[in-house]
């Protein structure tokens, strides 16, 4: 009936309008107020009065990449210790303080930072800033607390890796195969024996070394008054002493010169899986932004090349996943990084067939210039996804970006320049970036070989 008319015309109209006027989604600016305390603590304030909530995030410039040798998994185990007691808040008291005030909290350990964050009703901002300052001042932890969290973390490794089909594939595995420098290539969830070996002395030393105001960024996002927040932050954090930070180890990766291929048996899995990785261009280089768009061409969204080829056309899999930094996004790391694509498939499809299909799509980017329509589409997807990141988890996503840009670049204002950096990427740059960074000799393939034997429980479903 009436349905035939609107479909094409309406969407064309909207598209035309957007490309003519530039669209009203461009030019969105994140408010950023940035300053440093005398002890070196970086502080970013970004008000948003949409809802009566605030996100508080503290990022320490210590990730699992540079944790001590012989103590794999320690940066993450230490993250758990930050919830076990400080001078004024005993075990469980930090958690209860946040939750009984109507908030949520978490912490996470990543390549180059460990973060702690809370989202609470706006009027509890001071309460939370006080609590974060309290645990930045010092911990108060017993052997019982450490033993308890060693058990909890070992259970975490079991539930996410050891007792899970495809556990660790490829997010935990691939960096260990693709990288050569120990800092980038060790098991950062931790060997269970090395987790067990951790002592209270290790905890003390780690805290003293890395958990200091001059090695951290504090971000507040949400419904607050910046002047008031600045005063509260100064009151609680100003007198914390800075520490002498150790020099940064060499975390660089040598240019990869030959393609690599590994396989891994998984006794819990019954279908094979395939992952392919390439080392990223250095962060903040023009090529890095080009990779941001290449990721959109190849992998992000239903229209992406690899989805169209591997899912729609060839039916090898139901989805292709991956991207830049599987444990975050293209902004929240500070060192060598991988772009990874991975999928689950049938025994009938050999890994070589998958590799050839992926390489054939990649090869198009290495030989042809991308047309304008494709670039425009990728830019729009990039911007839309970027806004989603800002919005994610009630403003925490915005805090995460601001903290990363403060911690790694000393420039949180950069959050408003990213769209422009992406716009500057040209077809020629895309091609040269693909030629250098998506070359076969920069590639690591990981094949997961399933060895699960169907148990007695399952024959009723078998063929």
């Amino acid at each position, binding site marked *: 009936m009436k*349905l035939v*008319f*609107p*479909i*094409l015309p*309406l969407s064309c*109209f909207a*598209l035309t*309008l957007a490309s003519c006027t530039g669209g009203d*989604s461009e030019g*969105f600016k994140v408010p950023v107020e940035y300053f440093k305390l005398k002890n070196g603590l970086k502080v970013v304030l970004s008000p*948003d009065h949409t809802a*009566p909530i605030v996100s508080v995030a503290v990022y320490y410039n210590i990730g699992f990449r540079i944790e001590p040798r012989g103590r794999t998994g320690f940066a993450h185990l230490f993250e758990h210790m930050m919830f076990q007691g400080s*001078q*004024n808040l005993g075990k469980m008291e930090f958690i*209860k303080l946040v*939750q*009984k*005030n*109507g*908030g949520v909290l978490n912490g996470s350990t990543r390549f180059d930072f460990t973060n702690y964050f809370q989202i609470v*009703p706006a*009027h509890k901002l*001071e*309460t939370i800033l006080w609590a974060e300052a309290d645990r930045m001042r*010092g911990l*108060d*932890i*017993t052997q019982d607390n450490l033993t308890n969290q060693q*058990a*909890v973390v*070992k*259970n*975490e490794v*079991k*539930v996410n890796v*050891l*007792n899970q089909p495809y556990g660790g594939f490829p997010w935990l595995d691939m960096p260990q195969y693709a990288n050569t420098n120990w800092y980038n290539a060790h098991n950062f969830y931790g060997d269970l024996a090395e987790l067990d070996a951790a002592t209270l002395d290790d*905890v*003390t030393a780690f805290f003293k070394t890395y958990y200091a105001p001059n090695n951290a960024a504090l971000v507040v996002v949400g419904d607050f008054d910046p002047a008031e927040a600045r005063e509260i932050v100064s009151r609680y954090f100003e007198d914390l002493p800075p520490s002498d930070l150790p020099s940064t180890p060499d975390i660089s990766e040598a240019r990869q010169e030959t393609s690599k291929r590994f396989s891994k048996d998984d006794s819990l899995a*019954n279908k094979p899986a395939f992952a392919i990785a390439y080392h990223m261009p250095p962060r903040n280089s023009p090529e890095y932004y080009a990779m941001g768009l290449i990721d959109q061409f190849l992998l992000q*969204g*239903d*229209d992406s090349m690899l*989805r*169209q080829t591997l899912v729609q056309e060839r*039916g090898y*899999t139901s989805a292709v996943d991956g991207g830049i930094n599987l444990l975050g996004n293209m902004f929240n790391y500070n060192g060598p990084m991988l772009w990874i694509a991975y999928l*689950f498939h*049938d025994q009938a499809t050999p890994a070589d067939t998958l590799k050839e299909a992926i390489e054939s799509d990649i090869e198009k980017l290495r030989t042809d210039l991308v047309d304008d329509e494709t670039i425009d589409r990728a830019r*729009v997807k990039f*911007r839309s*996804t970027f*806004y989603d990141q800002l*919005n994610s988890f*009630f403003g925490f996503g915005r805090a995460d970006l601001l903290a990363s840009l403060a911690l790694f670049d000393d420039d949180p204002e950069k959050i408003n320049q990213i769209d422009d950096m992406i716009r500057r990427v040209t077809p020629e740059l895309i091609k040269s970036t693909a030629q250098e960074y998506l070359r076969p000799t920069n590639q690591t393939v990981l094949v997961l070989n399933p060895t699960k034997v169907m148990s007695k*429980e399952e024959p009723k*479903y*078998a*063929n």
Partner: protein
Amino acid sequence: MQTKNSLLLIGIVMIMTTESFTQKQSPPEGSKPKDFVLPPKTTLTLENGLHATLVPYGSLPKVTLRAVIRMGNINEAADEVWLSDLVGDFLEEGTLTRTSKQLAEEAARMGGEIGVSVGDDQMSVTGSVLSEFGPAMVTLIADVIRNPAFPESELDRLKNDRIRDLSIQKADPNAITNERFRSLLYPDHPYGRVFPPEELLRGYTIQQVRNFYAGNAGGARTHMYVAGKFDAPRIEEAIRTSFGGWERGVEPLVNIPKPRSTREIHIIDRPGAPQSTVYIGLPTINPGDNDYRRLLVMNALLGGSFMSRITSNIREDKGYTYSPGSSVSARYRDAYWVQFASITTDVTGPALKEIFFEIDRLQSEPPTTEELQGIQNYIAGIFVLQNSSPSGIINLLSFNNLHGLPETYLTEYVKTIYAVTPEEVRQLAARHIREEEMQIVIAGDKKKIEKQVAQFGRVLP
């Protein structure tokens, strides 16, 4: 034993602070609470029964659009398990005028994609796009819903994808524990048919797919939600134009289950498993019951929050597990309560003991006012967070609509939470967490756990 240890160790506590003997400070209270009001919304109803709800929210130039259709696994006969999921897959395979690739590219030009998700009671078709493309995305979603092509050429591929995913899920300890738990609670109902036999999946025809969709789609079953930043008159116009001529279809199917549970233990053997994946639960009251919101308070205190009693005990005190939790899982006029945990194999029995200990304790003595208030503040705070994102707002509204709840369910939510008394919490635990009916399912190393768990119920052979 644990307590004794910590007492002994007090003498050698490691103090990492410089001022170790100063009086402990209390956290500052903060300022006065700000007012929270539910985001305002407008609703409209078309002649064919389709409802739409528009909620302007936030400052970011993005809008989330979701059409929710009352169609899902509930509409499947016993020999149609996952047929609705296959129908959902097909919705992304193009319309009468657009191929799947055209659909994907058009959505991408708006900064989004069409996402279809199929659940027990509802199917949803979602697009989240840059604000200026809101009306165009309405049109695209309408085309997907009204004019699906169901190309037979894609049938074998989509079935094969489902067969592979089924096989992968059946290797997942959580998925198989959930499947067994559901099949025990709902022996003769779609909610209990979590996995299809592979041969069944393999046999589905394009005609079954088409018939299933045609028999269940229509304006009367559909609700369009729009939340975020958008041009309201243009969105409204797009909804009226693109959904206006659609047929009404049949009213939603009502098929309320009669769940059952028995105090017995089912073990799914996973030889060598380092952890036991445990589900302990039973049917409970559903959102249509006046006590449902009160039950959520009891649940958050017992096992449903980080500071809850069970989590404090088996994680933060004993270290038996990493991510335990309890929840109330609701479907139309139906719900169950479940405590789940992945527990290190050799402490499976001790962990169950602590879980039942905490249930017993809450059933026999009311919590303190202070403990309860903390939980009430937590739930009230979470409610504000649930109303603080476009997708969160849509989730709450569609929950309300599915369960046929009055406006007051949301507007008086916080008030209702705060009205619960400690004695009511005790009574709710006693009335609804009946240990004698607790169904226990464990995926784990049978040889190692069978004896450990025998004291908690008959272990089925």
